């Protein structure tokens, strides 16, 4: 193997900076982020967990149709947004609501899709967050296009393109990595390997040594990172973003994490995995780990901890209030955005509904 192709291979084990007991890992190839950065991350993690659990509760109360929670994957979510600048784009999947919120999207607007008011509730240009992608991996070629357009104009934009382990089996994953590599587009492909695609385990998705190993086939450097280690995620994703910004082209990052809850609340995970498997991941929890680390270093004070909890409560209240507020849907909207201006046929059809409504009103 040439030295160049070795450069494309991920490390033998996932990069880790803080071990599950909250201790610093010695001799890591990546330097640990500074304490102030990690303290900020802890605050974001606490809010992220609160958001996940609040949204899950709101499903049970009938305020959301469904919620694919990132409970347990919050470090990936927070890191994906934290390493980006305002000029950068984020392409989230349905599971990445917390990452979208991290990039600035209002959580109520981010959940519009699942509340059922409209498909995408936020303006993608405001915070440079693409609409949540539901068809797996189809957002990845879009990310390449956004990055390529920015590069043609000489803008220093980087694009973070997210997908799951199952999504890596889709054709668009392959096409996007190949296009990004050929055009040297500044894209960081960020795969959260949470070991399941609904019920199907990773072994049925791939026979590759790891998902990050797939990069070499495209000429894209791959890296593996402990997806429950906030420090390692910031270091690895941050490095990938810097490289992409410096013109070194796309990178593929695989985070090893675990989906702690069912696929969505509509799923029954007991049909395909044991509770014991889930329990084994409890002690790898990303929040506990970072909290232990920062406490041991004397960085996390009671006061800061209380402030984080208060902030998380504030965001949860905002989410609850927002989702409990009913918006009267306007059926005219169904016709208003199909084209820049409605076709004559859509105007006729809109009038039919308006007429139905006026007759209902008259009744």
């Amino acid at each position, binding site marked *: 193997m040439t030295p160049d192709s070795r450069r494309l291979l991920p490390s033998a084990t996932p990069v880790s900076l803080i071990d599950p007991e909250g201790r610093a890992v010695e001799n890591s190839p990546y330097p640990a982020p500074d304490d102030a950065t990690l303290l900020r991350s802890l605050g974001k993690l606490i809010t992220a967990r609160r958001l996940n659990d609040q949204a899950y509760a709101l499903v049970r109360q009938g305020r959301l149709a469904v919620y694919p929670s990132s409970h347990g994957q919050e470090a990936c979510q927070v890191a994906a947004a934290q390493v980006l600048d305002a000029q950068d784009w984020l392409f989230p999947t349905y599971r990445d609501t917390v990452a979208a919120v991290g990039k600035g999207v209002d959580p109520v607007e981010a959940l519009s899709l699942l509340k059922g008011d409209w498909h995408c509730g936020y*303006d*993608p240009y405001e915070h440079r967050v693409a609409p949540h992608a539901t068809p797996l991996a*189809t957002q990845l*070629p*879009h990310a*390449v*296009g956004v990055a390529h357009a920015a590069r043609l104009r000489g803008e220093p934009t980087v694009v973070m393109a997210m997908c799951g382990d199952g999504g890596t089996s889709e054709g*668009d994953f392959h*096409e996007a990595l190949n296009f990004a590599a050929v055009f040297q587009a500044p894209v960081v492909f960020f795969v959260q390997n949470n070991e399941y695609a609904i019920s199907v385990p990773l072994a049925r998705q791939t026979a590759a040594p790891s998902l990050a190993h797939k990069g070499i086939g495209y000429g894209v450097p791959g890296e593996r990172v402990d997806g429950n280690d906030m420090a390692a995620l910031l270091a690895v994703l941050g490095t990938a973003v810097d490289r992409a910004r410096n013109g070194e082209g796309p990178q593929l990052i695989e985070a090893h994490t675990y989906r702690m809850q069912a696929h969505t609340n509509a799923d029954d995970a007991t049909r395909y995995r044991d509770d014991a498997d889930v329990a084994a991941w409890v002690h790898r929890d990303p929040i506990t780990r970072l909290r232990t680390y920062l406490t041991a270093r004397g960085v996390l004070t009671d006061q800061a901890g209380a402030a984080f909890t208060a902030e998380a409560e504030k965001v949860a209240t905002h989410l609850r209030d927002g989702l409990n507020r009913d918006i009267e849907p306007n059926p005219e909207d169904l016709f208003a955005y*199909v084209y820049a201006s409605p076709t004559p046929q859509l105007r006729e059809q809109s009038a039919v509904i308006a007429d139905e409504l006026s007759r209902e009103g008259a009744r």
Partner: protein
Amino acid sequence: MTTVAHEKLSMAQALNRALRDAMTDDPSVVLFGEDIGALGGVFRITDGLTAAFGESRCFDTPLAESGIVGMAVGMAMNGMRPVVEMQFDAFAYPAFEQIISHVAKMRNRTRGRVGLPMVIRVPYAGGIGGVEHHCDSSEAYYAHTPGLQVVAPATPSDAYTLLRAAIESPDPVVFLEPKKLYWSKEEVEFPSRAAGIGTAVIRREGTDATLIAYGPSVPVALEAAAVAAQEGRSLQVVDLRSIVPFDDATVCAAVRSTGRAVVITESSGFAGVSAEIVARVTERCFTSLAAPVRRVTGMDIPYPPPKLEHFQLPGVDRVLDAVDDLSWEQ
């Protein structure tokens, strides 16, 4: 004062000219696809454009249609006006998910915040002796999908103006280029009269019956009308140009004026655009009709091999037979 000039151009040349002029006028117009750079495309529609505008404006991609259309979505999201080429009709199918789930839906999904000004050019339909996968009439798939505009020019002049309009459109356009008409020639007027997307045109005036066609079947309709004229029957020909949006007003006014109509498409009839046209005309013009609206379409079979394709293509005789069937005895 602009001076009017005429140039005799084939449809392929007119399309090339439209791309060149659009690229000159708007630096955000970018072209990409398979073999469209150095080669100029297998039909030479992008001939010379990489040389003229550089590799960043007209370039080859890896062979992957979903990737091509998906990348165009991203570029359109980010300030560009991509015009992508699918090499042949049937080779656009790998991009189907991108077209249906994203190209068509992005504006609606985002309440109008993210429009996708992009054009998907598709050399389409048969009549060129092409082997399997090179002759599909795929318009119904696209026309059935809200959010797409679908156009098919039948003349070099319309090819020019419609492609300029497609590139300028704030919404995505599936631009169907009838392969068998690529080499048909016509005097094209510059600066061109604007043929807007969504407007049909009367290609030939007539009083006895209306032939409704688009793209590759327009010359068939015109030829049939010429033959019928010799036999003393006056047939009007409507060229739709734009399948979506559909010009109900022009089509219905035409049918009402004659009271009889035949719809001609190369694509299979079942659940096709021809069926939609018959339904629309019947719903709107019923009281003006002297006979049921007839169709002359491709059979409901996979596109035949070259030696059998003449059975599939609507020809003048079949059109005239259908016209003969329009209850003239009344």
